[in-house]
């Protein structure tokens, strides 16, 4: 039989790419970058969670959500609420008119901790909420839309509207949410100072580890029959119904998974950056998340990670030097991706570098040369 050896080769090749990414994130970056830059990379990686979810939901399932910022934000806010409560102990807030509640509530004449803040005293509740709150919202939206067969552009517009609504809600309810400033001044996680450089390094590694958990989980989904059903649905949704599948439940499932990934990303963002605000929830950040995924290649899980890293790195360096130009650059990038390389970096890599690499892989001693090539190509692309 010829087949097993082919599969074996594919598996080892894939494992090699995962290993390469692991090496880059867990060894190369911590060695090369100082604490500040590494923290930035960690922040970029939190967007990779969203991008991976979009690969599942948009790339494979054909469901374009322009509201992933909402789920990112919900995960982030859940974590921020826990951290805020911890830093708002009665002793620490004794100069407030109501000690023991977050400072912004005090400024807004709120005199009692609202009911939905109460459970966030518990860390285990918070961890569950980071996953469950985005998933529940995605479930409700998904059932409402997909059971009624709302899809395509209409779904995209509705998710975008939801992103706008949630932002307005957060900003409007200043006394409960911290308003436009968000939830700031977060210091400790169960007594552990998250602002120190050591803590940031630990959180960075936590972020990398969870990213790989999500990557492998997503890979497991795509490798199962469910992955092929997603492709079939994107292709001919009606036909899938007549193959005996309830299309809506598959869409709801993949949308919930994408929302949970985004929620994890959001929680890690809050931990590493130290605050959460509505500016990461609304329409613009949600569209940026789609761009990360598109640039990386919407059919590639690993591509999505590189896409999130590169676009964010570009954003940082661009907005440092030409802040007003960034939005234009982003727009141009999106148009470029759609028109010139619809499968993103992963597509370019497969097309131009794979033949090269195959050649080099025959001589394993030169593997490191391949890595260099890939990084160079991705940075220029």
């Amino acid at each position, binding site marked *: 039989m010829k087949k097993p050896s082919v599969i074996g080769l594919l598996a080892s090749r894939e494992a090699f790419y995962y290993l390469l990414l692991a090496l880059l994130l867990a060894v190369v970056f911590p060695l090369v970058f100082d604490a500040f830059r590494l923290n930035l990379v960690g922040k970029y990686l939190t967007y990779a969670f969203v991008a991976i979810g979009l690969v599942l939901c948009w790339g494979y399932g054909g469901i374009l959500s322009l509201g992933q910022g909402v789920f990112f934000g919900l995960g982030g806010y859940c974590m921020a609420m826990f951290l805020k409560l911890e830093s708002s102990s009665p002793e620490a807030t004794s100069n407030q008119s109501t000690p023991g509640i977050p400072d912004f509530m005090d400024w807004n004449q709120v005199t009692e901790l609202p009911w939905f803040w109460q459970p966030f005293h518990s860390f285990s509740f918070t961890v569950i909420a980071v996953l469950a709150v985005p998933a529940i919202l995605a479930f409700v939206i998904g059932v409402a839309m997909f059971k009624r067969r709302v899809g395509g552009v209409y779904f995209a517009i509705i998710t975008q509207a939801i992103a706008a609504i949630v932002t307005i809600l957060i900003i409007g309810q200043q006394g409960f949410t911290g308003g436009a400033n968000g939830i700031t001044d977060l210091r400790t996680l169960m007594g552990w100072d998250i602002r120190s450089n050591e803590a940031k390094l630990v959180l960075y590694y936590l972020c990398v580890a969870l990213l790989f958990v999500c990557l492998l989980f997503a890979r497991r*989904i795509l490798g*199962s*029959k*469910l992955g*092929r*059903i997603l*492709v*079939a649905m*994107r*292709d*001919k949704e*009606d*036909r*899938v*119904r*007549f*193959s*005996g*599948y*309830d*299309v809506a*439940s*598959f869409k709801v*499932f993949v949308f919930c998974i994408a929302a949970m990934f985004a929620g994890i990303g959001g929680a890690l963002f809050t931990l590493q950056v130290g605050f959460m605000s509505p500016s990461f929830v609304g329409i613009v950040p949600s569209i940026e998340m789609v761009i990360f995924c598109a640039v990386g290649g919407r059919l590639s899980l690993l591509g999505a990670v590189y896409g999130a890293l590169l676009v964010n790195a570009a954003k940082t360096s661009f907005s440092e030097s030409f802040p007003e130009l960034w939005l234009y650059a982003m727009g141009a990038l999106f148009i470029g991706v759609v028109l010139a390389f619809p499968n993103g970096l992963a597509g370019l890599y497969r097309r131009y570098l794979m033949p090269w690499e195959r050649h080099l892989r025959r001589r394993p001693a030169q593997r490191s040369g391949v890595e260099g090539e890939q990084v160079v190509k991705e940075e220029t692309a």
Partner: protein
Amino acid sequence: MSPVNDDFILAVEGLTVSFDGFKAVNDLSFYLDPQEIRVIIGPNGAGKTTVLDLICGKTRATNGSIRFRGRELTRMKEHQIVRAGVGRKFQNPSIYEDLTVFENLEISYPSGRSVMGALSFRRDARVRDAVEEVAHTIFLADQLEQRAELLSHGQKQWLEIGMLLIQKPDLLMLDEPVAGMSVSERKKTAELLRVITRNHSVLVIEHDMQFVEDIADRVTVMHQGKVLSEGSLERVKSDPRVIEVYLGH
């Protein structure tokens, strides 16, 4: 549930669908015996495809009932109708172009149809055997790893028939299965259909009279959403009304 209806595998009664007042199917009734091969013929716009759409749940009936083995289909969802044992082949080949022939058949295999079922679905020997057997029947045994997009038109039609077969439906509905095929493909398809229709109840829409003659037990002629005539092909052919609206042209 009247006991009389349950003698039929499919009982369509008083079926009506109206699109903005236009009745594409108007008070239609017909009955299908188990193992029967029924061909629906009729001029363009007679509502033939709409009848299949109504049975498989793609279109919702305005009035009337469709009973399949005693179960009312008009209120069921598409996937529930499929699971009840009704399989449908569309007029234009409707397959998953981005997947391989194997994967197309595997998706149609009736197991692991829930979300969790699909996640834990394993490509075991049972599945592989079923896929290979069907692939052999539809002349695609050598193309299992081929992307469906790259098949010829006739091969795509066969693949869709295969996707239907692997579902193991009790009622097969085929919408113009030989349309757009070359002469040799047509012959092979007729042969294929003769084999697979042997132990199923079949509802076929077809224009090719030679083909109809070959396979039909009985023929229903539709005109303007209604049954114009019904019976053996011989009887229908000699019906003056049928000659006037359909065969005469």
